[in-house]
């Protein structure tokens, strides 16, 4: 006996909340992609818990697809960040459109 599934959902929800906070409150593009990774990992935790809750392997299959999509997403995202850095010389999301970095 491990724990009720609702506690797994609470853990995944708190992890998702942290990833969302990291995505919304940072301006560094690398930290924003890092927040996306945390959110994807939280959903994978929820799916693996669901696979155990209903004793069915579909949840684990979805989790493996989430990991593959995360790998594709992070490679494209970091490639775009390097492209933006070469073009504008910065990875600050507030500095990309204008030449001068807007400091509020």
């Amino acid at each position, binding site marked *: 006996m491990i724990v009720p599934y609702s506690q797994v959902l609470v853990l995944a929800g708190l992890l998702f909340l942290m990833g969302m906070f990291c995505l919304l409150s940072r301006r560094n593009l690398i930290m924003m992609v890092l927040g996306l990774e945390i959110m994807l990992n939280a959903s994978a935790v929820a799916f693996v818990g669901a696979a155990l809750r209903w004793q069915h392997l579909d949840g684990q299959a979805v989790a493996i697809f989430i990991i593959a999509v*995360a790998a594709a997403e992070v490679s*494209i995202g970091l490639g775009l960040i390097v492209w933006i850095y070469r073009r504008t010389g910065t990875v600050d999301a507030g500095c990309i459109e204008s030449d001068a970095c807007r400091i509020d």
Partner: protein
Amino acid sequence: MTIYSTLFYLLAVLILASTAIAVTRRNMVHAVIYLVISFFGSALLFYLFGAPLLAALEVIIYAGAIMILFLFIVMMLRMEGLEDRLFPLKQWLPAVGVCFVYGMVLVMLIVSDTTDAPPMPAAAAAPATFGQFLFQRHWLAIEIVSMLLLIALVGVLRLGRDAGGKTRPESEVAQ
């Protein structure tokens, strides 16, 4: 309280603490290292939930490949003086607002859940069983995912060759 539930609570505290430290670091190398700890905790959690193949993949892909890629990028780009202020004021309020609404919904869902579900029994799926299930029932999704990875590879190659518009002249490249 069995040994499994004790392990679950320990791992949950480890994951949440290391993630919370990671998202508040100014130094990005520290953030990536703390996230590696968090992903190791997630891998142990997957093992506890009876998914040994996913636990191995989590260590290999998430903690290994993806985080090392982040470390490469952090070390490749120069970013002095960028993280002077952790939370820009213009973004601080909307971020807190959205996260507050999300947290309120989470708390309301927890409070309103009165069904007394029994704890989940421990079970494990052998990697061979899981692999056979995956390739029998989800073979089309596997093909689509492999196509997605191929497209990502081609896209990253195209982005990397392009050099962002500021292409150096040929003579400089040749030297």
